[in-house]
């Protein structure tokens, strides 16, 4: 588990850097952090290329050198690997549960102990990654894309566009999650994660949409945007080149936190009997099953919650790094 101190800044944990074999970038990163503390103006030194690059390739170059990005990327890579091949690090069967072991704490071969049904918490935590990471990432991506496109358009064009899109948003806001879940998901018989993800996107986009709209409305007022408009830049150019990089930060912040809440929401839906059908294994289901027994068997809650926390941490760090990379003021 990485030390979370590395977040939100470019001060690099040395080990992480060395591990990536990008030794050359290390000096840059550390020096850059210092420069930044002194304030803008002193751009990152040592950029060898002189020809102008697009904002996006600039951002990518920036990211590759950012230790925060590398650490979070490694965590996410690890999560993806165990999602695909959980048996690499867990030899047990997550569905093999013996009530005789219920709520027992850790023992040899079972480092995290057992849950209330006598299932091995370690195995279930490893196997739960696939469902939870899929739900979290896909729902967040869906919500972020749909929400920022619709919200961005509403904010950028204003007027009738804004009125219509915003009022549709309001109607979706009105649907209580429990009602929506019971109605929309109870008719679904598929036992895959996709209906659940679709449901989250359907009910989740209005929030991001409002946030994106607000950001775009603000960004639109900036002098350089006005200048670009005066110079006759096309709408799509203004949106992509000038507004998006300046409006994306709040969307990233909300989306990275929402990722964690979607993983937890999946459990709420399962609890309501409309989420993922047994015998699916997920962190959310295990967290919600262990919650009432917090006084008797806290370990059964601790591990899946911990896994969720690390995942959220990784994505928050990733979001921070991407945001920094896209911020022209930091250049």
């Amino acid at each position, binding site marked *: 588990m990485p030390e979370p101190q590395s977040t939100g800044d470019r001060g690099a944990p040395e080990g992480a850097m060395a591990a990536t074999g990008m030794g050359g970038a290390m000096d840059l990163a550390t020096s850059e952090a210092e420069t930044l503390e002194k304030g803008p103006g002193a751009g990152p030194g040592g950029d060898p290329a002189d020809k102008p690059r697009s904002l996006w390739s600039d951002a990518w170059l920036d990211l590759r050198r950012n230790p925060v990005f590398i650490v979070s990327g490694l965590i996410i890579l690890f999560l993806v690997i165990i999602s695909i091949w959980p048996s690499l690090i867990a030899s047990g069967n997550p569905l093999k549960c013996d009530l005789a072991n219920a709520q027992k704490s850790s023992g040899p071969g079972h480092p995290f102990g057992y849950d209330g049904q006598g299932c091995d918490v370690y195995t279930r935590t490893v196997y739960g990654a696939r469902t939870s990471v899929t739900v979290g990432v896909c729902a967040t991506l869906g919500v972020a894309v749909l929400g920022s496109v619709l919200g961005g358009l509403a904010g950028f064009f204003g007027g009738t566009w804004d009125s219509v899109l915003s009022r549709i948003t*309001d109607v979706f806001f009105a649907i*209580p999650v429990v009602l929506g879940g019971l109605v929309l998901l109870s008719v679904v018989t598929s036992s895959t994660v996709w209906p659940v993800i679709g449901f989250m996107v359907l009910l989740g986009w209005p929030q991001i949409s409002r946030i994106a709209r607000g*950001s775009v409305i603000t960004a639109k007022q900036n002098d350089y945007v006005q200048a670009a408009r005066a110079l006759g830049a096309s709408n799509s150019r203004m949106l992509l080149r000038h507004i998006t990089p300046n409006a994306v930060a709040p969307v990233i912040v909300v989306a990275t936190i929402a990722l964690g809440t979607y993983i937890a929401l999946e459990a709420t839906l399962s609890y309501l009997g409309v989420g993922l059908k047994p015998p699916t294994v997920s962190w959310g289901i295990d967290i919600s099953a262990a919650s009432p027994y917090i006084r008797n068997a806290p370990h059964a809650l601790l591990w899946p919650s911990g896994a969720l926390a690390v995942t959220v941490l990784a994505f928050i760090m990733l979001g921070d790094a991407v945001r920094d990379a896209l911020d022209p003021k930091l250049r």
Partner: protein
Amino acid sequence: MGRYVIRRLLQMIPVFIGATLLIFLMVNVMGDPIAGLCGDRQCDPATAAQLRKEFGLDKPVWQQYLTYMGNVFTGDFGTAFNGQKVTELMSTAFPVTIRLTVVAVFFEIVIGITLGVITGLRRGRPVDTGVLLVTLVVISVPTFVTGLLLQLLLGVEWGWIKPSVSTDATFDELIVPGLVLASVSLAYVTRLTRTSIAENRRSDYVRTAVAKGLPRRRVITRHLLRNSLIPVVTFIGTDIGALMGGAIVTERIFNIHGVGYQLYQGILRQNTQTVVGFVTVLVLVFLVANLLVDLLYAVLDPRIRYA
């Protein structure tokens, strides 16, 4: 400005009709609620038919909706299955929930923005990392557990608070529930503020303000914070509805007979009248909150104008 507000108020009418229709249909799609009224036993068909007639469930859905809306405009929101008027339920539930929401929003603003400013100005320092860790805990441990533990510690072990909220639900009783309810939103507000502050502290007007020799405090509150608040205000605006209608877990743990609890019960028992009644009021709250947020944009950023 005035014309803008009037236009927005007029737009509420289609949203109102659309939302109520949508909710009405959704509750209807859930199926026949009568079967749930007879316990683990089959209602005898004659009584079931009679009950269906009494609640108007024997009519086609569009007719039910028209009758319902007609009644709503005369102030009659119908009756819950236990014979209680929905207006009566609402008049007890909404004041409690409004108080709870006020407490939660208060915490979001005071704690969330304060922490956001501090961490935004001190990125990467121990205080930033500390707040991030707390944020992670709040996101990954269910409210159910935080609420329960706080209730046990403060209410039973130390005896600082009463574990359950009385029917009066006064503000002082709602402090802990409000904090629990606000916890996840606090994480959002803190990080949104932090990002905005970090982003804006390098902008020209802040540098100008610093260069002018303004005191640090004034730069932060008048220049930096004010321009960083738009995403935060937007978020809180979207959150008010969620806090009011979705406080199911918090309300259950602390025995608050509020909107979230009543709405949840209504949904589980498929009581159209209760659900649509409560949601109707909530929709109005959303609409007003969103309008206020949009107006606040213009206050926070004078460059934004509404025609």
